[in-house]
């Protein structure tokens, strides 16, 4: 499985670390809403298809990435930085794309 890092380009999955479900929304740290905390910790969509995930390119640029992976085919349909504030220099040029 290849993940195309927006900075490094296509890399093997061994360079990446799965950081969990990208659909979770963390409640406010001071929140007393136990249902919201329970949902954050335990509830998963477990879809058979496209799934929002957070990966870290731990064996490369170490950026955290928002990845959409198909759980049936492992096809990666989108990869983006979790942080949206990286400048244009953080992206590969169009001609570099495979």
């Amino acid at each position, binding site marked *: 499985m290849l993940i195309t890092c927006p900075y*490094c*380009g*296509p890399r093997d999955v061994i*360079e990446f670390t799965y950081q969990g479900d990208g659909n979770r929304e963390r409640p406010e740290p001071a929140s007393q809403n136990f249902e919201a905390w329970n949902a954050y910790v335990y509830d998963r969509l477990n879809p058979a298809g496209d799934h929002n995930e957070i990966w870290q390119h731990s064996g490369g640029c170490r950026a955290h990435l928002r990845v959409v992976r198909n759980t049936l085919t492992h096809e990666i349909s989108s990869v983006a930085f979790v942080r949206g*504030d990286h*400048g244009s*220099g953080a992206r*590969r040029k169009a001609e570099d794309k495979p």
Partner: protein
Amino acid sequence: MVERQSPLEPEFHVGSHGNFEHGVEILLTETRPGSIVQLAAWPGEEKKLIAAIRTVVGLALPDGAGGGMSDGAKSVFGFAPGKFTVADEAEGLAAAFAKAVTPDIGTVTDLSHGRTAIRIAGPKAEWVLAKFFAIDFALPAFPVGAGRSTVHHDVFAQIHRTGTDQFDLYVFRSFARSFWKALCHACEEVGYEVQ
């Protein structure tokens, strides 16, 4: 200045090795730069950091991910968004950057003692590195001057292409000897010379 000891020393054997009866196709050296510095810009400050690099080392970084260049003595390349590695044959790079990179631009980390720089050159350099790293070493994908960060098993490595057939590898000093031994083994079948 006190001379820095090489972590490769017990395994660093100058001369030709491996299958070299038809000529050596790989040249291995330890470049031993005086300074290795890592620079990181706060979000939105990347351009100021690139300007500071130009002021301190006199190299104008090309735009884009992994862009870099080298003038022989000094090298600079991007290895992550807003982050750059700079190496210089001379010492004192971190002190020079500490003046130019103010706290509102980013951070300066002196890695001179933390990384070991190994140069692999020769017609089979690309071929040997392809055994180590799952990245595209072809010139159009990895042009001269560009940098890449990747791993060999769990040994993090930064690769700077400083020539068509020449790459500078920056690895953790503590893993450098083991990495060096593996690199020598990988070079054996094509014949290599350690200088």
